[in-house]
């Protein structure tokens, strides 16, 4: 049984979120602090930061101005992240479920109980009835270890990760178009671009440091085009703002390409020499005239032409997108339609010219390369490719026949729990109750599990459902590497050791592996042992890290993969000379016909709902909802609504409104702003329970990547009458 033993209020009283406002020991100056050069634990920019450490406690920070990506810059999350350390909610011992909540236990008892449950479920229902979920906020070392643990120790096919909710549609599109899944350019190419398209990326709030890169591009004469249903902080002063109607991105890209082809701004030579499939795209976009595109997208025909005029003739250009185009049941198609714009003008693989998705999670890039995805083996290898299977099974010392095949993706694992096909789950670095769409279904699935184990540093809302909670490690309590959104592998140095009886995550996994009878295959004494293993396992793969070492990474302030040998400098920019990673060296165009979102507005649910982040919170908030100064900055979710729509609905600023979809409803205050389309409302998703935006969202999956459709569904909004 995985139903929580206490109600929410009782859990909150005991395990938080409580708000931490001060470092351990108070504000008084801590003398003799050590400064540890490491990185932020939050988004994919992975800013360099120096943590101030005093007596094994992180008590503050200093900017790290020498690290070249952020040069000392930080967003408010980075500034205040140290307040998660020595937090009163920190789990200090393993917890076991009782009928009155949890009791603390020894590691032996907690690990044995976990292993007994795994054995019992796998003996009774088969190995795949026990699933594992990982996360992309963890190090490359842990991502590698979790993939290996699941396949070698648990021997389940059902291992996936929360990156499935993040950018997998972009990854799949990149593989289809370029034969490789990595941002094509270092961010240092952004300021060299003369035209920048930013589509569905709220850079100012989600990747704040990249704002400086965009502004530097503008200082150098670039035209900035922002495509978003909301006028985000970077859209405010953009040269061109296209307020696209939610769910219409592929049509808009087709419309821009239509004009570029008509005006003969395509690079015929590049297309002929380096690509396949342009003629089909040309046929597809023929009907997407500015007028037709306007009718689908809600973007004026004149603005579509203007975008083509800027993009078509630019000398250099960067196209950047993020979750806004990726979180769709046609996420792969959206990304491919934007990639067409890049390929048609031939501006990729050159200084100041290229393309990239901006990864949302700290290790969103590395977390998807080393094997914690259900369809992937280390080195970004394909789990169904016989040669790749043989290489990895030999490397791990198991028979190829023992290596599981493709398993279920994150949302599908919850669907399978609903159906009773999966009975047990071990989860780390993932808070699906807050982060997966249609939260009531997620909750019911968690309640149905026969066994649920969680490795966590704080008791997340999801972990309240656990039978066993294994007290793991915060980022600063472990060491390793992460690979940033530009493909740069950087070094996380250890700042402190885990408090109390909490343990480093990977040691918990190797202990579980030993108890599952796989001790010999997990002979890791230090994190660097795992890194050596993952680097060797990646050799010859697409994501080749085999030339990297901790020392080299530190010396070079990070190394871009592929880095196939010890004297290789790494590869900041992909596709130089128009050489792509498909066997024929050519990139692929894909003709994309626009199709509507899985759930469009109608008479009953006439308003679009879209969701996203705010600058002061991160993902499901398991860390940032415990940091007082960040919570104060934006304490609770608000429903952004345009005054024109609000007037029709009789809603004033601050009124509590019910936002209702076919899946659920939430009540939140209305925030009247002219920065959102009047046919659309926006609610940020970082909160749990009755204020969770994911009670509303639609678990419709992209057919290729299985990313859910967070960015568009149909809702109603009504004022709550106060009595």
């Amino acid at each position: 049984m995985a139903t929580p033993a206490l109600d929410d209020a009782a859990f909150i009283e005991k395990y938080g979120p409580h708000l931490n406002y001060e470092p351990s020991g108070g504000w008084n100056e801590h003398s003799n602090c050590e400064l540890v050069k490491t990185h932020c634990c939050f988004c994919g920019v992975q800013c360099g930061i120096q943590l101030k450490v005093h007596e094994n406690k992180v008590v503050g920070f200093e900017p790290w101005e020498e690290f070249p990506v952020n040069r000392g810059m930080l967003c408010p999350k980075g500034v205040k992240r140290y307040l998660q350390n020595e937090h009163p909610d920190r789990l200090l011992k393993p917890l076991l479920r009782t009928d009155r909540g949890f009791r603390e236990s020894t590691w032996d008892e907690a690990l044995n109980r976990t292993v007994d449950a795994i054995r019992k479920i796998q003996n009774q229902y088969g190995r795949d009835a026990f699933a594992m979920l990982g996360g992309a906020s963890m190090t490359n070392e842990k991502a590698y270890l979790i993939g290996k643990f699941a396949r070698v120790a648990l021997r389940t096919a059902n291992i996936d990760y929360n990156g499935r909710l993040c950018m997998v549609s972009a990854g799949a599109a990149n593989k289809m178009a370029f034969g490789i899944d990595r941002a094509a350019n270092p961010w240092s190419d952004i300021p060299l671009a003369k035209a920048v398209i930013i589509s569905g990326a709220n850079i100012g709030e989600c990747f704040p440091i990249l704002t400086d890169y965009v502004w530097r591009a503008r200082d150098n004469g670039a035209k900035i085009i922002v495509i978003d249903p909301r006028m985000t902080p970077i859209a405010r002063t953009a040269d061109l703002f296209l307020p696209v109607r939610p769910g219409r991105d592929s049509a808009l890209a087709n419309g821009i390409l239509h004009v570029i082809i008509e005006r003969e701004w395509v690079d015929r030579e590049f297309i002929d020499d380096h690509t396949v499939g342009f003629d089909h795209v040309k046929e597809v976009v023929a009907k997407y005239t500015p007028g037709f595109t306007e009718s689908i997208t809600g973007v004026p025909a004149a603005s579509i032409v203007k975008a083509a005029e800027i993009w078509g003739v630019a000398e250099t250009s960067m196209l950047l997108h993020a979750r806004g185009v990726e979180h769709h049941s046609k996420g792969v198609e959206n990304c491919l339609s934007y990639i067409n714009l890049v390929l048609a003008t031939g501006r990729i693989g050159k200084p100041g010219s290229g393309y990239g998705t901006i990864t949302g999670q700290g290790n969103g890039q590395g977390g998807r390369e080393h094997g914690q995805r259900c369809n992937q083996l280390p080195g970004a290898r394909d789990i169904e490719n016989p040669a790749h299977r043989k290489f990895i099974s030999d490397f791990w010392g198991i028979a190829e026949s023992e290596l599981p095949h493709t398993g279920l993706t994150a949302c599908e694992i919850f669907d399978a729990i609903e159906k009773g096909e999966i009975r047990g789950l071990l989860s780390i670095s993932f808070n699906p109750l807050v982060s997966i769409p249609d939260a009531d279904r997620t909750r019911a699935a968690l309640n149905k599990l026969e066994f649920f184990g969680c490795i966590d540093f704080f008791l997340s809302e999801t972990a309240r459902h656990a039978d066993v909670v294994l007290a793991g490690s915060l980022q600063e309590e472990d060491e390793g590497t992460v690979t940033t959104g530009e493909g740069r592998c950087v070094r996380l140095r250890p700042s402190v050791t885990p408090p109390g009886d909490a343990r480093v995550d990977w040691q918990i996994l190797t202990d579980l592996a030993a108890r599952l009878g796989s001790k010999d295959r997990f002979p890791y004494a230090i994190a660097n042992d795992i890194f050596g293993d993952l680097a060797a396992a990646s050799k010859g793969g697409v994501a080749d890290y085999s030339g990297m070492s901790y020392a080299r990474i530190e010396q070079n302030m990070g190394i871009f993969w592929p880095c196939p040998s010890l004297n290789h400098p790494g590869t900041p920019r992909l596709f130089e000379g128009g050489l792509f990673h498909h066997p024929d060296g050519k990139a692929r165009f894909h003709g994309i016909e626009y199709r509507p979102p899985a759930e469009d507005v109608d008479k009953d649910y006439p308003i679009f709902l879209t969701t996203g982040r705010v600058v002061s919170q991160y993902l499901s908030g398991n860390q940032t909802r415990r940091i007082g100064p960040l919570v104060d900055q934006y304490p609770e979710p608000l429903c952004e609504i345009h005054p024109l729509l609000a007037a029709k609905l009789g809603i004033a600023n601050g009124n509590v409104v019910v936002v209702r979809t076919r899946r659920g409803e939430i009540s939140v205050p209305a925030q009247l702003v002219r920065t959102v389309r009047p046919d659309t409302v926006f609610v940020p998703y970082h909160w749990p329970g009755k204020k969770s935006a994911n009670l509303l969202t639609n678990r419709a999956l992209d057919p290729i990547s299985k990313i859910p459709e967070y960015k568009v569904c149909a809702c109603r909004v009504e004022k709550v009458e106060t009595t």
Partner: protein
Amino acid sequence: MNGFEFFIDPSRCIACKACVQACMECDTHRGRAMIHLEFVDRALSTQAAPVVCMHCEDPACARVCPADAIKQTEDGIVHSSLKPRCIGCSNCVLACPFGVPQYVAQIDQMMKCDMCFDRTSIGKKPMCATVCPSQALYYGTAEEIERMRVEKPINEFQFGNQTVRTKVRLMSAPSSARLDFDVTSFMPETDNHVPEITELVVWGG
């Protein structure tokens, strides 16, 4: 730092408040920010104004202080109030033409930005300008700003008949093109903006 000046460009600001959060981390006043940042009018726009002290050449705050609690040093820095002197009268709060000083009731004292005197006096950049992700707050030389940016620094402001000259420079756009704020200004003119079906639902659909 020799030749280093402070430049503010609100047009670059993304309202993230990293500056305010980081100011709170400075050793001499940990736990309290001495700068502030407000949306100008969030209903209209995401435009925000980061407010650090402008460090006037002839500071009104110091002139109106009945307790002589606000001191200016030779380097042009106008310091925060001296605790033993400040009587919490808020004269300075009312007098400042830029809305900088804030009275902190908990400690019955006015606190304001001293351009990170503890950091700048030992060759570091001010905390807010170091962390600012948009570099709306910039600390560097006049030559750097001239080379990098099209906006021009100004440090002379007119308030009625009074001219105020400041140490901190405000970046001014080369042309002041009107910016549209409302998303509907960027939508097709023919578009009704609010879907008709909304009416059906709200009024009897």
